[in-house]
C-alpha cells in the first residue's frame, strides 16, 4: 500500500527547505494565471503578485534558477491560497451572523399575525390558535377545580384568590401575542441598537490589507519568507476562530427566534396554568415551558438573551476600530516575532470580548442557555477546539500519571510514606492554587492535604470522562484498595477505632470513619478529644459521608465552639435551610446533635413535624437543647427574631414580604407552643 503519510512529510520538508534556501521571485506569467482564476479564486492573490513584480519578466528566472524559482512559486501560491481562504471564511462568518441578527426581527419574528404582512408568521399564528383553544378548555377545568375547593373549604382563601386570577387570565389568554410581542419587540429594539451594522469588517480589511502588503513585497530579497508564512497562518487561524464565534452568535440569534416561536405558541396554556393552584400534579400535566413559572422564566431569559450578545458584538466592534496592525517583516526573526505578538494580542482582544459576551449571554438563558452552551461546547470539541482539547489531554495526562505514580510508588514504600507523600502533595497544591493554606509540617495538615489530594485527583478524572477519554463508569469507582478497606471497616467498632485509629492505613481509616459517622454521628464526633481532631473528623465526613450524615455533621458545626471558625457551609457545600429541609423527621431525631438543636437558625428551619418528632422520640440531651432556647442567649435570639418578623409584618412594605413574615411568625409561635410539652 502506498504510504500517504510519508509522502506528506516529504512534500512538507521540500516546501520548507526550498522556502528557506531560495530568494523569492515570480514563476508564473500573468497570462497563465487568468484562466486559473475561473477555476479557483485564490489565484487572484498570485495574479496580484505577478502584476506587482514584473509579469513575464520573472519567467526568465525559471531558466537561471529553476529550483529557487519553483519553490518561490509554491510559497506564493500557498500564501495566496491561505489569504483568500481566510478572507472567504471570514466573509461567510460575517454574512451568517448579519443574516441571523436581521432575520430575527423580520421573517423569523414570532409576533406578526397579520396575514397581509411580509413578515407574517404562519407557523406561530396557526400553532397559537390551536393552543389557545386547548387553553380555553383547560380554563373550564380550572373553574371547576376552584368551585370544588370553595365548596369543600379546602384552601378556601387561596381558591377565592385564584378566582380573581382566573378572570384576569381568561381575558389575557386571548391577547398573549400582543403581550409577548411587546416584550420581544422591546428587547429586539435594544439588541438591534447594538448590532445595527452587524460585525464590523474593519479587522478583516485591516488584516487582509496588511497581508496583501506583506505579500506584495515577497519579491524583495530583504523579506523574511518564514515570517511571511507565519503571518499567513496566523491570519488563517484568526479567520477560523472568528468564523466559529460568528457562527455561535448566529446560532444563538436563530435559536432565540425559534424558541420564542415555541414560547409564543404555548403562551395561552402557560397563562392558563396560572389559574391552577400550585401542585406537583399540575406540573406533571403541564410540564416544562407549558407551566407558567417555567414559561415566564424562559420567555424573559430568551427575550433578553440578545441584549448582552448584541452589546458584546458592539464592544468587539469598538475594539476592532482601535486596531493598529504594524507587522515588521523587513528585519530578522526577532523583530518580526515582536511585532507579530503585539498584533496577535491586539487581534485577540475583540475575540475575547465576543467569547466572554457569548458566555454571559447564554448564562442569562438559564437552563435552556446551558443546553446551548453544551451544544456549543460539543461543536467546539469536534471542530476548532479539538486541538485545544488535545492539548488539555496531553497536559492533563502526564499530571494524572504523575499523581498516580506518586500515589502508587508511595504505596510501595509503606503506608506512612504514602500518607506523607499524598498529604504533602495535596497540601502543596492547595497552598499554591487553593484558598485554604495547609501546614503540611503537622500531622493534621497532612491529613487535610490527603483529602485535598483525593479531591484534585478526582477532577482530571472527571474531566477525562467528560471528554470521553476514559469510560464514564470508571469515575467515582472504588479502587481495589478502597473496596478492601470498606470490607475491613465492617468489623470495626467505636471502641476499636478510638483505641487503634493510629494503626489503620489511610483508606482503612477513611472507610471506618465513614461507617461510624453514618452509624452514630454524635458518638463519632464526641470521640474527638481536641478541636483539631473534631475539625479533621468533620472534614472526613464532608469528603466521604453520605448526604444525610453530611447534613447532620454540618448542622452540628453550628454553635459548636470546638468546630472552630472554618466556613463549614463551604466545606459541606450547603446551608442550614437546605440541610434541615432535606431531613425526614426520623433523620432529625437520629442525626441532629444537641449542639445543632440548640441553634435558633436550626430551630426556625425545623418543620412542626420534625420538632414534634424530637419532642416525642428524641433523647433527653436533644430535648434539653431545644428547651434551652427559651432561656439565656437562646431566648434573646428568639425574641429578636420575633421582633424582626413583627416589624416586617406591621410596617408598610411589599405584600409578599408581609405575608411571608406573617407565615414565619405563625410557624415560630406554633413551634414555641410545642415546647410546652417538654417544660
Amino acid at each position: 500500500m502506498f504510504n500517504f503519510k510519508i509522502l506528506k512529510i516529504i512534500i512538507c520538508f521540500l516546501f520548507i527547505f526550498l522556502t528557506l534556501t531560495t530568494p523569492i521571485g515570480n514563476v508564473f506569467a500573468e497570462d497563465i494565471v487568468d484562466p486559473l482564476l475561473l477555476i479557483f479564486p485564490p489565484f487572484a492573490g498570485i495574479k496580484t503578485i505577478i502584476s506587482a513584480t514584473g509579469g513575464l519578466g520573472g519567467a526568465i528566472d525559471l531558466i537561471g534558477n529553476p529550483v529557487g524559482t519553483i519553490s518561490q512559486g509554491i510559497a506564493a501560491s500557498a500564501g495566496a491560497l491561505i489569504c483568500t481562504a481566510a478572507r472567504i471564511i471570514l466573509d461567510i462568518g460575517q454574512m451568517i451572523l448579519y443574516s441571523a441578527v436581521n432575520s430575527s426581527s423580520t421573517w423569523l419574528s414570532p409576533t406578526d399575525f397579520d396575514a397581509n404582512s411580509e413578515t407574517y408568521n404562519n407557523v406561530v399564528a396557526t400553532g397559537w390558535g390551536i393552543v389557545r383553544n386547548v387553553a380555553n378548555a383547560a380554563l373550564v377545568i380550572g373553574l371547576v377545580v376552584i368551585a370544588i375547593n370553595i365548596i369543600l373549604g379546602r384552601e378556601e382563601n387561596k381558591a377565592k384568590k385564584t378566582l380573581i386570577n382566573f378572570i384576569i387570565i381568561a381575558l389575557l389568554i386571548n391577547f398573549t401575542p400582543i403581550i409577548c410581542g411587546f416584550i420581544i419587540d422591546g428587547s429586539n429594539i435594544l439588541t438591534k441598537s447594538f448590532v445595527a451594522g452587524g460585525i464590523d469588517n474593519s479587522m478583516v480589511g485591516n488584516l487582509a490589507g496588511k497581508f496583501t502588503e506583506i505579500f506584495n513585497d515577497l519579491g524583495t530579497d530583504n523579506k523574511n519568507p518564514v515570517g511571511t508564512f507565519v503571518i499567513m497562518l496566523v491570519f488563517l487561524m484568526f479567520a477560523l476562530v472568528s468564523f466559529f464565534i460568528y457562527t455561535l452568535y448566529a446560532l444563538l440569534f436563530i435559536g432565540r427566534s425559534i424558541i420564542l416561536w415555541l414560547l409564543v405558541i404555548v403562551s395561552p396554556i402557560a397563562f392558563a396554568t396560572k389559574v391552577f393552584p400550585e401542585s406537583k400534579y399540575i406540573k406533571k400535566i403541564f410540564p416544562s415551558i407549558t407551566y407558567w413559572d417555567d414559561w415566564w422564566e424562559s420567555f424573559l431569559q430568551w427575550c433578553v438573551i440578545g441584549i448582552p450578545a448584541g452589546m458584546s458584538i458592539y464592544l468587539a466592534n469598538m475594539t476592532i476600530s482601535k486596531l493598529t496592525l504594524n507587522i515588521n517583516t523587513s528585519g530578522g526573526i526577532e523583530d518580526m516575532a515582536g511585532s507579530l505578538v503585539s498584533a496577535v494580542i491586539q487581534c485577540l482582544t475583540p475575540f475575547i470580548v465576543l467569547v466572554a459576551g457569548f458566555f454571559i449571554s447564554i448564562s442569562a438563558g438559564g437552563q435552556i442557555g446551558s443546553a446551548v452552551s453544551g451544544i456549543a461546547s460539543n461543536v467546539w470539541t469536534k471542530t476548532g477546539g479539538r486541538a485545544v482539547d488535545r492539548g488539555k489531554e496531553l497536559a492533563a495526562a502526564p499530571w494524572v500519571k504523575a499523581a498516580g505514580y506518586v500515589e502508587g510508588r508511595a504505596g510501595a514504600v509503606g503506608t506512612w510514606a504514602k500518607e506523607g507523600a499524598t498529604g504533602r502533595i495535596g497540601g502543596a497544591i492547595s497552598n499554591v492554587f487553593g484558598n485554604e493554606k495547609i501546614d503540611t509540617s503537622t500531622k493534621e495538615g497532612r491529613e487535610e492535604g490527603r483529602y485535598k489530594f483525593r479531591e484534585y485527583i478526582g477532577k482530571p478524572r472527571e474531566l477525562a470522562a467528560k471528554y470521553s477519554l476514559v469510560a464514564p463508569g470508571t469515575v467515582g469507582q472504588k479502587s481495589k484498595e478502597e473496596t478492601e478497606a470498606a470490607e475491613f471497616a465492617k468489623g470495626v467498632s467505636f471502641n476499636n477505632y478510638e483505641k487503634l485509629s493510629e494503626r489503620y492505613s489511610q483508606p482503612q481509616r477513611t472507610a471506618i470513619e465513614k461507617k461510624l459517622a453514618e452509624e452514630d454521628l454524635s458518638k463519632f464526633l464526641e470521640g474527638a478529644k481536641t478541636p483539631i481532631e473534631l475539625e479533621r473528623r468533620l472534614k472526613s465526613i464532608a469528603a466521604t459521608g453520605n448526604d444525610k450524615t453530611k447534613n447532620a455533621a454540618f448542622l452540628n458545626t453550628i454553635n459548636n465552639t470546638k468546630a472552630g471558625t472554618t466556613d463549614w457551609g463551604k466545606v459541606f457545600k450547603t446551608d442550614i435551610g437546605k440541610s434541615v429541609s432535606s431531613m425526614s423527621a426520623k433523620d432529625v431525631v437520629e442525626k441532629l446533635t444537641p449542639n445543632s438543636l440548640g441553634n435558633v437558625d436550626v430551630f426556625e428551619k425545623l418543620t412542626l413535624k420534625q420538632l414534634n418528632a424530637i419532642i416525642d422520640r428524641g433523647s433527653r440531651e436533644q430535648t434539653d437543647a431545644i428547651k434551652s432556647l427559651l432561656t439565656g442567649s437562646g431566648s434573646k435570639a428568639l425574641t429578636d427574631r420575633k421582633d424582626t418578623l413583627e416589624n416586617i409584618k406591621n410596617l408598610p412594605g411589599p405584600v409578599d414580604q408581609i405575608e411571608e413574615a406573617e407565615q414565619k411568625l405563625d410557624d415560630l409561635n406554633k413551634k414555641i407552643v410545642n415546647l410546652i410539652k417538654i417544660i
Partner: protein
Amino acid sequence: MTSEMSKKISDDIIYFIEGIVLEYNLEKDFIEEDVLLKKKLSGVDDLAERISNKLLFSKTINDYIKNNKPLEEILVSFRIKKIIEQLINNRISFDDLNALLSQNIKVSPEVIQSITEKIKKNPSIKELIDSKIGETEELISNEEDSKKNTNTKSIGNILLKKIN
C-alpha cells in the same frame, strides 16, 4: 421513666388551656407585675402568640425554666395543664376535677364549675383518655392533618351545619 411512659398533651389542649386562661383572666396578677409581658400581651388574641410571648418575654418564666423549677408555682395555665395530664393518664377521674381545680386556682366556684365542664366536654381530652400510650402520636398527627385540610368557615361546612 414515668414521664416517658405517660401520654403527652396535644397542641389542641395547650390552646384550649390558654383559651380558658384568657377567657377568665386567670393570669391577670402575674401579667400585671411584668411591664414588658403586659405590653407584649395587650390586645393579642391569637393563642399561639400569647403562649410564645409569655414563654419568651417573661424573665420570671425564663428563670424558672433555666432552673428547672415547676412553672405551676407561678402560672395558672401550667397548673391546669398538670391536672389535665393526670386526667389523660388516668391518674384522676372527671369527678376529681372540681376539687383539684378549686385547690389550684383562686377563683369563684362558678368559674371552677364552668372550667370543669369545659374540660369534661373537650373532645381532644376525651380521645386522649381513651387512647393507649403509643396511639397518642397518631391521634395528634391525625388531628393536625385534619386541621390542615378543612376550613370550618367553608361554604360546605356552613351548609352541613344548617342541614343538621
